[in-house]
């Protein structure tokens, strides 16, 4: 039984930032950083466009706050947003000091670019591999802290809760299949989102909502899970992300008639140079809906992977494309054989980000003593019903750092957990894992089949446009899949690097997350941000200006609500 002061689950942007913050809080604290992959494989690596903060004199905290709250369709907690925005510049500069290779202006300052829904250029970037560079800078910097002890390729199966507080975790060491216990006075979940509950997503394979399910099972509510962001520009077929920075740098969206259709949806007038918050720089939820309406009107293209529109970058010219968005060119050439210097890129909306997650306060604390969460897996909420592009990397930094400090403070005041009750809990967990996963024999359901059926029902019921009937059907299908999951079969019964067992554990988690999404969505009888209902097309502040809280019960999710904190920005109609 390994013992630490703080356990961090997840080694992406938020987890690494938390680890460094905790290590810097006190060199005496011992820290375990547990990840199912090597940290530099984490999905932060795929973020492209940039990370937002007020870095220039022409910008202000109030403007960034207002853009964020407006983008969130007023479901963000405004006190948390203000805290986030105040700390954002310092975090970006900290990362600059740690070696992140930010793109620079001629005078040597970090460059900033335009992004959707932002009224000023405030998105710092490292070409169009911002997440990759941030992740590697954080990972490489983390190597100098001797108090951070990594558990690479270890999958967390449960939180050990005793005496009303979290006191450790159990893991499966993927190398040898052994179930091990790690005790800790505090646990921080930084496991990212769960876009893989949907069939068509920009998200990497590892994004299976593990942390959300771990917290949910330990009795912590999942907040605002119905809000799932579609990014308007993914490659058809694979769902590979084509960054919003391509539009920030001046790219156009055109339909099959070559027409910049966004002008028909109140986002105009079209201009040659990009204008903040207009046209292609509108927010993601609205742009994704515009695409679907173009489809209804029969003005999208039809290809082997369904409908798509064009992202036209040709007028930017080869030099600008190479300098500002080289990865876009690399991805388009490699994966679809199109060079954006000469041809438009086919794109369509794709599941990208979950605004919802483990309910935390602005210090990253959850309702379970000792448990903290940060990054996409958490919901503070600063993103409300729709996140603005380039706020999420900053969120990983600001709240990752906050989580590290909060957990350090808490752990310093706690005595070590007593091992006896944890051993008993661990024995129960070993038994559960043996019966359902590690030593399970028989069964006739294939993991991939259940996963595919989950994908299908999620897309049908809780996609861009939703209605009562379709959502109820999805809720029912998900409970049937939960039953069928009990009868899964395994080809692989060995203990060494058994990725089939890991896939089953991930699917188990995803079914919980999917259920929370579908039930939260069915209960919200209004349209707000990314949650768009054809049967309730208007926002309803009187009844639904509140956060959804999904609690896990034996009969499925129970949905409750909590108030939204409004400080200085009163809800108004969201028009761009």
């Amino acid at each position, binding site marked *: 039984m390994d013992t630490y002061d703080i356990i961090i689950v997840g080694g992406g942007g938020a987890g690494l930032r938390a680890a460094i913050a905790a290590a810097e809080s006190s060199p005496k604290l011992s820290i375990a950083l547990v990840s199912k992959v090597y940290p530099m*494989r984490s999905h932060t*690596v795929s973020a492209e466009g940039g990370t937002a903060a007020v870095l220039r004199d022409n910008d202000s905290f109030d403007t960034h706050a207002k853009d964020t709250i407006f983008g969130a369709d007023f479901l963000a907690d405004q006190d948390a947003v203000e805290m986030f925005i105040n700390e954002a510049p310092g975090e970006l*500069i900290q990362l*600059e000091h740690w070696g992140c290779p930010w793109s620079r202006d001629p005078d040597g300052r970090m460059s900033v670019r335009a992004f959707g829904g932002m009224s000023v250029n405030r998105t710092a970037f490292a070409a169009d591999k911002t997440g990759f560079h941030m992740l590697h800078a954080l990972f490489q910097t983390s190597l100098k802290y001797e108090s951070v002890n990594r558990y690479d390729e270890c999958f967390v199966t449960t939180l050990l809760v005793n005496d009303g507080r979290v006191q450790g975790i159990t893991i499966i060491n993927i190398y040898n299949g052994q179930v091990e216990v790690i005790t800790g006075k505090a646990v921080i979940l930084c496991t990212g989102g769960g876009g893989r509950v949907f069939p068509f997503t920009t998200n*990497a394979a590892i994004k299976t909502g593990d942390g959300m399910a771990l917290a949910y099972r330990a009795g912590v509510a999942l907040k605002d899970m119905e809000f799932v962001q579609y990014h308007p520009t993914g490659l058809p077929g694979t769902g590979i992300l084509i960054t919003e920075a391509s539009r920030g740098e001046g790219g156009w969206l055109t339909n099959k008639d070559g027409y910049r259709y966004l002008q028909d949806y109140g986002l105009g007038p079209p201009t040659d140079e990009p204008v903040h918050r207009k046209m292609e720089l509108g927010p993601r939820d609205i742009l994704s809906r515009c695409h679907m309406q173009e489809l209804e009107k029969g003005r999208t293209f039809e290809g082997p992977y369904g409908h798509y529109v064009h992202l036209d970058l040709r007028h930017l010219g080869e030099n600008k494309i190479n300098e500002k968005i080289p990865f876009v060119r690399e991805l388009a050439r490699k994966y679809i054989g199109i060079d954006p210097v000469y041809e438009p890129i086919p794109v369509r909306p794709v599941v990208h980000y979950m605004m919802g997650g483990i309910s935390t306060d602005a210090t990253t604390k959850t309702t379970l003593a000792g448990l903290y969460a940060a990054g996409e897996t958490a919901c503070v909420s600063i993103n409300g019903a729709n996140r603005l592009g380039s706020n999420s990397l900053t969120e990983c930094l600001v709240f990752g750092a906050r989580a590290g400090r909060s957990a350090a403070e808490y752990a310093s005041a706690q005595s070590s957990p007593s091992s006896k009750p944890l051993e008993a809990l661990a024995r129960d967990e070993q038994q559960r894992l043996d019966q359902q996963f590690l030593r399970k024999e028989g069964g006739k359901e294939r993991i991939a089949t259940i996963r595919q059926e989950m994908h299908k029902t999620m897309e049908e019921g809780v996609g861009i446009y939703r209605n009562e009937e379709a959502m109820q059907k999805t809720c029912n299908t998900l409970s049937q899949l939960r039953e069928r999951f009990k009868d899964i079969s395994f080809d692989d019964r*060995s203990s060494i690097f058994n*990725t089939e067992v890991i896939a089953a554990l991930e699917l188990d988690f995803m079914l919980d997350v999917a259920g929370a999404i579908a039930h939260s969505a069915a209960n919200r009888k209004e349209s707000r941000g990314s949650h768009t209902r054809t049967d309730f097309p208007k926002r309803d502040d009187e009844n639904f200006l509140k956060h959804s809280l999904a609690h896990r019960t034996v009969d499925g999710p129970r949905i409750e609500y909590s108030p939204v904190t409004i400080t200085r920005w009163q809800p108004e109609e969201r028009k761009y």
Partner: protein
Amino acid sequence: MNGATATLNITRYLPGQDQIPRSQSYSVPYQRDWVILDALNYIKDHIDGTLSYRWSCRMGVCGSCGMMVNGVPKLTCAVFLRDFYPQEIRIEPLVNFPIIRDLVIDMSDFLDKLKSVKPWIIRKTEKQISEGEYLQTPEELSAYQQFTQCINCMLCYAACPVYGMEPEFLGPAAIALGYRYNQDSRDQGKESRQAVLGSHEGIWQCTFVGECTEVCPKEVDPAAAIQRSKVEITKDWFKSVLLPWGQR
């Protein structure tokens, strides 16, 4: 789909069961726009759940899915079936590494080597956050930018004949990353990295075959980093011999 199939001959190895790695043949539907990784996922999902390999982003940036494809180190998410079809395709784990199972290699050696080159900014005096960023011009950025592109995919280690024979060799990626920090205008830690980079296991083992640069999927050019480090360390050494009184 027209019923066409592609054949993959894949290395299988399960310690305790297999004495030595063996090859197993699989047929998958041939899809023109499938990458090798799509075929592996098809096998895993529909034919044989025991096949083990790593993958995640499937867009060439996480660095997980490096394997030998017909004897050449490749990211399997970035190589298409159509580049080989209708020929059979041989998929093996990256060479020069211990095999954990099937296509999964043990890369812990690299993690230790990466740490040994101190891949972080070293300063004699730290600037406060309140003082803002270190200014760095685009020209200063371009001095090291190429070497920041390393995704730690290990293809260069699989291609490196020196690493194959001398496992203690630091290897292309670790050297390139050490060099990356040495060239960063914000860094002042060059001297503390030279002990490792300039050691017997460091740059001097490289015989400049250049295979690392050849296989790098991100155009990092580790060979250039190694050669330039050799020149710089040699210059520093001459200065230290000719000007031994700290006038460097």
